């Protein structure tokens, strides 16, 4: 028997050692795996492609939407959505956008990052819309996991390896961190096979991005001649701004040379002018085409078949009584010859107490051709003896205006009076007297242009409704009773109530037409139906 001390520690050490060794191996393996995954992730999410290389250079339209996701709140909160009819298929979009298209927000934020570029060639059907945007590396990585989803299927596409989402009818591919999406397979394939020559240049894309000034989107269109609008428009650019109460779009259209020639024939080739504020009223137009108004109307008459109102008025008045031809013609000629190029037209109201509902219009214009108002006091104050309602001008010293009574009282008495630096002409003596009683706004429309238009939809709508209701009350509206008219008008009234103001400024600018359209929405508190209205509807 041996007294030798047996030491089992070594065995114990050896077991622990082995264990440690195994652990280390596992850790190394895991580290390697992680490193491998990280490398795989890094490798596969490298930013190897720039967006430009995947965007065809010869698209008919291109829309740039910067930071789409960061503006979701602005977009979804926009009252523009309220203008859509209740049964519009687009109303669901608002909710979808608010719900992040059904994805967790962090996922969505990683899928769409920075600029969204939408483009295509087909401007009739928009069948080849191509969306190109960037993803974050996380988004790119997430996309690589598509194999775990039943929604996405692979499409070999001749080795291009694109993906298809059958349920949504879209095709997409990811190159680097750039996502290319289209409902059209060929469009995706085409985007993936662009050469430097056929892709848009990085500079062009960068220029567009640089030109963005806080817009929601920038769109550029180029139309081929065989397109429906191509014979009128070479190209156009639109910029859209949106906030919680306003929407603004600036459209810059390059007319086709042929149409530009036609357009210039109709309105000349004016530069943007400082436009006068029109007389007050719910529908206003102010214009200055650089051509005196009578010449403009003559041109329109000749080229557009629009009757020249001066000629029509002269012919009408001459037909009334030969004895008064000279007086009428003298006044009309004086007005005509004095008129400058700046004019403003206002639809002020509808006179419901006249013998039938009569719209009241106010036309103001500059008179660089002479002080016509100066001749007014020289006109007879009283009608010719024995003919109190002679259709002939008469001067009203109390109101400093001249009117020609036609029939049925002041609603049918064309009237002219001094207004600011020019004259104001109206089809109604009442409307003219009312407008002339308010000092002319000598200010200018905030933006320069050649044409300014503004409408207050709610007032305009109610004004028209009053006339329609009157016609319906007397059975003069086909297939409408007052009640049915009220029902039929309800959706439009609702719509009109939501828009506080619509303004448009259009002008010629570098041989292009620039249109600035602003929509101001009514504050929600003002459009909320009252309890009485609600109970009445019920």
């Amino acid at each position, binding site marked *: 028997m041996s007294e030798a001390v047996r030491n089992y520690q070594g065995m114990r050490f050896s077991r622990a050692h082995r264990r440690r060794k195994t652990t280390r191996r596992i850790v190394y393996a895991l580290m390697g795996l992680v490193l491998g995954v990280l490398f795989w992730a890094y490798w596969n999410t490298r930013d190897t492609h720039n967006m430009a290389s995947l965007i065809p250079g010869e698209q008919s339209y291109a829309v740039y939407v910067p930071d789409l996701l960061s503006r979701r709140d602005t977009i979804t909160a926009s009252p523009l959505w309220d203008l859509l009819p209740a049964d519009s298929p687009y109303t669901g979009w608002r909710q979808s956008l608010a719900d992040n298209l059904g994805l967790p927000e962090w996922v969505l934020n990683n899928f769409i990052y920075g600029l969204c570029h939408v483009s295509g060639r087909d401007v009739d059907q928009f069948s080849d819309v191509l969306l190109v945007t960037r993803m974050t590396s996380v988004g790119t990585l997430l996309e690589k996991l598509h194999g775990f989803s039943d929604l996405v299927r692979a499409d070999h596409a001749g080795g291009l390896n694109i993906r298809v989402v059958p349920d949504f009818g879209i095709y997409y591919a990811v190159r680097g961190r750039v996502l290319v999406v289209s409902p059209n397979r060929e469009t995706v394939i085409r985007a993936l096979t662009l050469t430097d020559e056929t892709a848009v240049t990085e500079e062009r894309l960068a220029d567009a991005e640089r030109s963005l000034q806080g817009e929601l989107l920038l769109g550029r269109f180029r139309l081929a001649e065989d397109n429906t609008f191509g014979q009128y428009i070479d190209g156009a650019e639109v910029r859209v701004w949106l906030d919680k109460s306003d929407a603004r779009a600036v459209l810059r259209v390059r007319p086709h040379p042929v149409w530009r020639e036609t357009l210039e024939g109709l309105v000349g080739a004016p530069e943007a002018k400082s436009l006068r504020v029109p007389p007050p009223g719910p529908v206003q137009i102010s214009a200055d085409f650089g051509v005196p108004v009578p010449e403009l109307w003559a041109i329109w008459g000749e080229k557009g078949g629009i009757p020249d109102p001066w000629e029509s008025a002269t012919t009408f008045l001459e037909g009334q009584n030969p004895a008064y031809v000279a007086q009428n013609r003298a006044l009309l000629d004086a007005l005509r010859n004095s008129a400058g190029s700046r004019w403003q037209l206002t639809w002020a109201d509808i006179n419901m*107490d006249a013998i039938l509902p009569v719209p009241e219009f106010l036309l103001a214009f500059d008179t660089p051709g002479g002080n016509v108002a100066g001749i007014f006091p020289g006109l007879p104050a009283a009608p010719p003896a024995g003919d109190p*309602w002679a259709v002939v001008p008469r001067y009203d010293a109390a109101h400093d205006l001249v009117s020609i009574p036609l029939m*049925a*009282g*002041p609603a049918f008495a064309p009237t002219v009076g001094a207004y600011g630096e020019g004259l104001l002409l109206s089809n109604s003596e009442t409307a003219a007297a009312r407008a002339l009683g308010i000092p002319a706004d000598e200010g200018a429309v905030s933006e320069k242009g050649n044409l300014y238009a503004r409408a207050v939809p709610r007032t305009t709508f109610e004004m028209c409704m009053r006339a329609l209701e009157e*016609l319906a009350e*007397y059975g*003069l*509206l086909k297939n409408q009773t007052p009640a049915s008219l009220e029902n039929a008008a309800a959706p439009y009234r609702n719509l009109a109530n939501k828009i506080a103001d619509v303004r448009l400024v259009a002008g010629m600018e570098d041989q292009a037409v620039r249109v600035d359209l602003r929509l101001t929405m009514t504050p929600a508190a003002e459009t909320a139906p009252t309890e009485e209205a609600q109970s009445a509807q019920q």
Partner: protein
Amino acid sequence: MFPRRFVRMLTPTLLIVVGLLVVAPAHAFEAGAAKVELTPPIGTPLNGYGDRLARGSVARHDPLWARCLYLNDEETAVFLVNTDLCMINPALRDRVLELAPPEVPKENIFLTATHTHSGPGAMEENLFVRFVSGRFMPDVLEQTARSIAQSMREALAAKRRAAIGYDTGKQLVLSANRRVDKGPIDEQIGVIRVDDADGNPIAILANFAAHPTSVPDSDQYSFSADYVGFYYDELETLAGGGCIALFMNGAEGNQTINDPEGRSGWERTESVGKLLAARVKGIANDIDCGEVKLRVGYAEPSLPPTMATRIQPAQVVLQTLEINELLMCFWPGEPIVELGLELRRQALAMGYAKQFSVGLSNNYLMYFVNREYFGQPWYEAKVNFFGPGISDWFYTEFTRLMSKNTTDPTPAPPATVAPVEVPGGFELKLSGNAYARGFQRGAAFAADVAEQYSQRVEAPVKSAELLPTAGAWSLLPDWIDASPLALPTLAIAARTRLEKVSLDTLREIEGMAAATGLPFDGLWILQNTRAMEVAENRGDFFAFPLCTVVTALDDRVAESGMLVGRVFDWPREETPVYIEHRPDTGHVFCEIGFTWNAGIFSGMNDAGLVVCVESTDQSTAGIGPGDAPIEVHLRAVLQESATVEDAVTRLRALDAVHGDVVLVAGPMKKGFGAQLVTANGIREPDSGLFTRKPAGDGTIDRDARARYERVAAALGEEGIVTTQTLESVLTTPSGPDGGAGIWNSDSRHAVIFVPARGEVRFTFRKDDGSPGPFVVRRLKELRDSE
């Protein structure tokens, strides 16, 4: 001594006092009068003339007034208000009644207008009326109403014990009939005199019928009360003592002022006003005033149906005022003088001592005319929107309000008869007067007539199909429904076609309208759609019927004397009817036609007189605005004529045959004969087979020629034509593929008349388009059996 004498005196004195207290009326009669100027601001449009184009006034020639007479017999208080306005419109009346003093019940307020055509408009909201009365000015309406109410308050405030009397006088030179030279006028001037207890004049009211339309052209835009203004001034001067002159116009629809002193312009106006005042004062001077009993009659009856539903109300206020034995009837518009005279005749016959008609009261329903006037091309007839029976309606409704009336004046509706079904259609036997027969027919086919009206009048007017394609109508946008204006306009246009239509026919259509619930004008337009549709050259209406009429006589018939055969073609599906008319007077007659059409296309009377209309492709040629469709005239011909000569004479006198051809056949002064009446004259038979196609006539259209040639071929050049042969020819399908007959796809009925026997053999079209079996009726047996 003294006490005895005193007692002796006291007893009879007491007896007299007590007797007076018992005998004298218990009424403390009070009256007051006032006038308030209501001339609106210059610039306010004037009312009355459309050709002013609703322009504003430019001057005030003389003031316009609201004048009010307050009367109270302690039981009944009334305001008699006369205003220098063209009319009292509902909005003004409503507002005045709101503002009126509460002491007088609303029903006892009599609001009248003098009808000056130089008074203000601007008080009418109705879009259709504004074309004449001018733009609506709410402030003018309000101020006018306040002035009228103020006149009431002032009259009330001026009340005092009073006595009242009335009388009438005669005038022959102050007014004239404005339509007919030396036509009827109302010679009566009615006068009411009111004095206070001291015999001082409070007011004198005149009732005289003439339009205040004498303001000269030079002052057409000046406010003026017209001749009435001069009357006021003159009478108040003559009467003195603060007397208020009142004026209530009468049945002045067709009355105007004369020029008794041969003056013109304002001088004429002044002359009539002053002469009237003098005459009124003269009559008033002879009136003994006393206390009276007042009685107000008030009703709001429903008006007869009208086409002008957007202009005219469905109900109207009617009032009468009885002052002892005087009856005043207040018309809500302008009755022509004939209506006023007839109502007076009826009132006097009922026992009233005097009767005044007051026009322009409480509302303005425009003119009221009688049947004789209704079809005349005169303005008053054109703007009467309640049919030719409106005069009867007023007589009835006023009678209902008269205290002396003890019976219900509502005429009993005629008994109705049910149609009997015959193969392919209906048979109806009518009897009684023309109205009753029309009523029976309307009641029997009310639904069908209403449907025809809806389809052939209302719908095409609404869709603008029946509107003129030129002029202002054509400028209306598609979304405008012009029918509220177009239907009354069409009614006015169609009414002129009644000018030569007999009164019996008019009454018959009235009866039909009453039974169907349609306005008379609506049914009359329906009668005229045949011409209107074709004349306007529209769509499927353009397919015009070609009828065929053949007469066999002389050697071509046997003992029956003559046979008339006809096939009636008509492009639209209709419900065919055979109707026997047994009128109260004249001949029994029958017609074969449709439910809704009151004309006679094929008919015969019990004398054997046959009339048949053959429509041609020139049927509407030469039809003027005064022409009714020829078929409408034929009712009277059948009822009143027994011989061909008489019937033809009547037709020629009417000068109503234009593009159509009318066969008149039957007994002549000697034997049987036939004549074709055309626009160019009369054609008589040149052989025993008489058709529209004369030998060698190249003018007849090709289709008709072919059909007549087939008839001639089928009946042969010789031989006896029998009813059986005719039946066969008439009902054999027409060529070229169908056969040698004349029955075609448009044929609605075929008839054979045997005048000698008063026999009618007719067949209606079956659902498959072929003729049904012949039905035989005998008119002579009918007459004999009676």
